[in-house]
C-alpha cells in the first residue's frame, strides 16, 4: 500500500486530496506514469514527487508504507 497525497493544484487536477495504491513496490517514474494514465489532465504538468518528506528522483523505488506527495512547482512572487 502506497499512500499518495495530491498537494495544491495537484489536488484540483486529481479531484481528491489523497488515495492509496495497492502496490508493494514501484519507481517514482512508474507512479507518475500511473497518475498520467488515471488523470490525463496531469499530462505536461511538471510534478515533483516527495517520498516520506524527501524529494525523490525518477529512478528511486517507492515501497509499501511510503507516503508520496505530488507537488506542482510554484513560480509566482
Amino acid at each position, binding site marked *: 500500500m502506497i499512500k499518495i497525497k495530491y498537494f495544491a493544484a495537484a489536488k484540483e487536477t486529481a479531484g481528491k486530496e489523497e488515495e492509496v495504491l495497492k502496490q508493494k513496490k514501484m519507481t517514482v517514474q512508474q507512479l507518475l506514469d500511473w497518475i498520467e494514465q488515471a488523470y490525463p489532465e496531469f499530462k505536461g504538468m511538471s510534478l515533483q514527487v516527495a517520498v516520506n518528506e524527501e524529494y525523490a528522483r525518477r529512478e528511486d523505488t517507492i515501497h509499501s508504507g511510503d507516503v508520496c506527495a505530488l507537488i506542482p512547482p510554484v513560480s509566482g*512572487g
Partner: protein
Amino acid sequence: MDKRYSRQMLFTPIGQSGQEKLATSHIVMVGCGALGTAISELLIRAGVGKLTIADRDYVEMSNLQRQQLFTEKDAQEGVPKVIAAKKRLEMIRQDAEIVTVLDHVDGPLLEHLVKDADLIMDATDNFETRLLINDVAWKQQIPWIHGACVGSTGVVFPFIPGKTACFRCLLPVLPAVNQTCDTAGIIAPTVQIVAATQSAEALKWLTGNTKTMRKKLYHFDVWNNTFVEAGISRMKHESCPTCSEKPTYPALLKQEGTNYAVLCGRDTIQVVPDSNRNITIADGEKMAKRLKLSYRVTDFFIEFHVEKYRCILFQNGRLLIHGLKDITKGRKLYHQLFG
C-alpha cells in the same frame, strides 16, 4: 536603538548581539512586487542596515490588492516600484540605507550588486531569474532565501552554498506549463506567509542562528489548511553546472545583442537593447514627435502609444510593449521605432 528594537532584543535568540549584526547587514533583494514589498518592509523595520532592491517594473492598480508599500497615487502616476518602495521605507526608517536599481536583472548586474552582500532574498516571479540568483549565490558563496507563491499555496527554502543542494538540482528542467498569479490568481495571505517565513530565515542567518534554519522545503496551502515538507539531499546532481566541483554557471553567460523577452503572464514584451546602444528618454521623445505619437514624460520613463500598443521606455533604453506577446511582432515594432 535599545528602545526602538526592544521587543526584538527581548527575543532571546536575537538579543543585543543579534540586533547589532542586523544593523551592519547588507541584503540584496531581487524583485519588488508582492513578496518584495512585504519582505523589505519587514526587514527594514527589523533594523537591517542596508537593502538593495532591484526591480524592472512600475506600480499598476492590479498590484494594490497585495503589494503593501504602494498607494493609489503610486499606481495612478505609474511610479517605478523601487522608487515608490524606497520613499515609503524611508518614512518608516530614516537611517536605513536603501539602494534602488530600476533595471532588468541579468548575470553581470546581479554579480555586481551582491559584491558585499550577506544574503540574497528571492522576490522574483519567474524560474529563469531564480536560476540566475542560484548561479550568482553559488559563485559568490552567499546564501539565498527562496520564496514563491500562487493562489493559496507557497513555498520557502534557504539555499546555502556548501550546505544544501542547489535550486538547479531541484529543478534541472524548467516546467513547460506552470500556474502563475496571472492565470491562477493570488490572495494576499499567501504572499504574507511566504514573505514572513522567508524573512524569519533571513533573521536566523543574519543573527547567526543557522542551526534553526529550515532543512526542508516548506510548501503550504492556506486555503485548504495543508502543508508538505520535503528535503532535497537526494536531489543533488553530481554533474550540476552550478553546485558540482566544476561549475559553469550557465545562467551567468552574457547574452549579446538586443534581448527580447515575453514577461511572465504580463501580456508584455520587454526589449533590452545591446549594451553598445544608448537610447534615452530624450531619444524616445524625439522619435514620438517625429512619428506624431501621443506621449507623456515622467521622471523615470516616457510613455507613448504606437498602433494599439502602450509602450514604456526607461532612461537606460529598456522598452516595455504592453498588450503584445508575439516576439516577432515586438522585434519588428522595435526596429520601426528605433531603427
